[in-house]
């Protein structure tokens, strides 16, 4: 029997959404202060208005839905999914007020793209956007990458059971420490330490590559936030091409990979268990898939005679591949060049890389390396079963932080998520084709949106149909939250209609 949700359930959901909105409202004060400091008074007003509206919503939710109940599992998941939508609408306000987005829908698109660490953008005249608005775009990636709810978990939440469901709702099903609040805090502390180190390195690289001192700090901070959170926004319209520097490319490759690594492995690294990194199934899968996909992209580029020398191949082919595989979306070539120059084979290699993504419990989206590993181990198991005698017992293990036995439950869960992602990629591609774009272009852009990558082959543009913008927003949202929270919302809606 399905139980209809009661008023107390909706009150809890509303109350905690209010808490999260207050967190976002306070986050808007960072670009506000930057704007005041730099004398960007018009943008400061945009953030003052944006923060006020967000805080007003937060307080209204807290007053109207006041409760001291702790969160139940289904409530936690619903809170996460709905919070992300509210966050998109409210974080878009200062962007829209800047006048650089043609419509509020476009601002919402970029806001979701930032929060979901995708990197697709509809901003106009980015090169003349204020520094504070640029900081906000990149900060959205930093907040979204660690998880909006993790902010709330770290600072506001007391109830542990509900906290875990909110954490899981943001596509993180692995605890690093026994206590979930401590896990959330570890993720933030790790990210902040990497932020200081990474931004400093990028600042130095920028300074020695011709940027002024202030610009190098600004670019260093922005690039780190977008690279570590595998986001892909950049302060200039040309992405990484703007810098014309291989050193920038090497450093960003390193940071992108760091962002795609499981936070559990960061924990091992911090506590001196370095061997764990090379023993882990996800690292091995990453190296193998990088090799195979590198071969596909390489063969594609070689057969199409795209680059004449090895260095060009590395700076263009390998960089784009790493950017796709880690789900970042930084580019050292123009969007249209993918279609006009790369050829179908290389493009397919890129689509596959985007569809796989990075590690579980990292800032990347997509299917994730662990599930690909499970898929192949299952395939090997089935082959073994066919070869070996019927009585033979096959025990397949995966080393992921600890030894895990490959059981039916794990296999089923992994295959289900893979199937859901493939469906999500296909639905977006179909939408693109219905709206008049060619098959490969539609599949490329759809995979990029749903896997939260951000590479574009030229479809994402302010002039694209509004329907497609909405499809991509939904794909980014669903892809980032990995379905569980979305199913929770559907469950609550069905229970409200059919429950007793």
């Amino acid at each position, binding site marked *: 029997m399905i139980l209809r949700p009661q008023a107390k359930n909706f009150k809890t959901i509303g109350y905690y959404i209010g808490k999260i909105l207050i967190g976002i409202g306070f986050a808007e004060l960072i670009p506000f202060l930057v704007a005041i400091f730099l004398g*960007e*008074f*018009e943008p400061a*007003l*945009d953030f*003052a*208005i944006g923060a*006020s*509206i967000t*805080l*007003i919503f937060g*307080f*209204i939710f*807290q*007053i109207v839905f*006041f409760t*001291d109940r702790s969160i139940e599992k289904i409530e936690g998941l619903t809170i996460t999914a709905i919070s992300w939508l509210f966050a998109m609408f409210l974080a878009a306000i200062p962007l829209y*007020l800047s006048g650089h987005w043609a419509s509020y829908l476009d601002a919402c698109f970029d806001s979701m793209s930032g929060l979901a660490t995708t990197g697709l953008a509809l901003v106009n005249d980015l*090169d*003349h*956007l*204020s*520094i504070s608005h640029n900081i906000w775009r990149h900060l959205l990636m930093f907040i979204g990458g660690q998880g909006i709810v993790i902010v709330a978990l770290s600072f506001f939440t007391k109830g542990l059971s509900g906290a875990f469901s909110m954490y899981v709702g943001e596509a993180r099903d692995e605890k690093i420490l026994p206590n979930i609040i401590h896990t959330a805090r570890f993720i933030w502390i790790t990210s902040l330490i990497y932020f200081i180190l990474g931004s400093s390195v990028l600042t130095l690289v920028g300074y020695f*590559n*011709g*940027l*002024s001192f202030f*610009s190098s700090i600004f670019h260093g901070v922005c690039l780190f936030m977008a690279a570590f959170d595998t986001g892909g926004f950049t302060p*200039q*319209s*040309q992405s990484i*091409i*703007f*810098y*014309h*520097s*291989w050193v920038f490319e090497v450093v960003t490759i390193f940071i992108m990979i760091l962002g795609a690594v499981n936070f559990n492995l960061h924990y091992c690294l911090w506590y001196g268990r370095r061997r764990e990194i090379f023993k882990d199934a996800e690292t091995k899968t990453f190296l193998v898939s990088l090799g195979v996909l590198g071969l596909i992209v390489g063969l594609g580029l070689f057969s199409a005679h*795209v*680059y*004449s*020398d090895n*260095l*060009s*191949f*590395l*700076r*263009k082919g390998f960089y784009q591949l790493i950017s796709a595989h880690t789900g970042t979306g930084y580019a050292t*070539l*123009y969007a*249209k*060049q993918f279609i*006009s*120059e790369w050829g179908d084979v290389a493009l397919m290699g890129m689509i596959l890389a985007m569809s796989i993504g990075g590690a579980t419990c990292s800032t990347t989206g997509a299917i994730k390396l662990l599930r690909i590993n499970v898929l192949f181990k299952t395939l090997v198991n089935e082959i073994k079963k066919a070869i070996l005698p019927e009585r033979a017992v096959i025990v397949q293990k995966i080393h992921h932080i600890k030894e895990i036995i490959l059981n039916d439950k794990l296999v089923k869960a992994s295959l289900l998520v893979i199937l859901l992602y493939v469906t999500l990629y296909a639905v977006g591609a179909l939408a693109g084709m219905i709206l008049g774009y060619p098959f490969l272009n539609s599949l490329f852009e759809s995979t990029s949106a749903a896997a939260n990558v951000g590479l574009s082959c030229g479809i994402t543009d302010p002039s694209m149909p509004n329907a497609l913008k909405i499809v991509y927003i939904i794909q980014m949202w669903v892809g980032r939250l990995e379905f569980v929270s979305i199913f929770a919302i559907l469950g609550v809606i069905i229970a409200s209609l059919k429950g007793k």
Partner: protein
Amino acid sequence: MKSKLVLFLFISFCFVSLGFAQRVTSKELIENAAGYDLKEVVYQGEAIGEALERADHCWVNVHDGNAAVGLWLSQDDCSKINFFGDYNTTGDTIEIKGVFHRSCTQHSGELDIHVAELRVVEQGAKREHIFNRKKMNLFLVLFSVLCLLWILQILKLLQRKKSLRR
């Protein structure tokens, strides 16, 4: 006499045009890079960001309204550009003549233009940002509502604490 002058001007124009490089946009260069590879082109747009110096040359990115393309130019040419576009500045509009590379071998695969000639078509300037009074008024109203709600929230919490003590 007049018709002879017109004919002379027409022939001169045709003659001079043949000697000139092709005028292109960033869209044409990016979408048909192979077609323009190693050809001399004329490109015009706004210098953005800042000049990125490299020994005796520098990189300047020039945006023509559609996309920005990287220009590789000498320090002498670079020094002719005074304004680079950003939030506070409209950059100099420059016109350059140079050789376009789809995948430059000197710069390991960059799509760029090696500049031979540069002229500033229009000087850039500081951008004026007019303070929007409507936005200010909206903020004041919102801030008042926010303060009211904040007070309500505090009162509600105090009331809750009192009832718990009882």
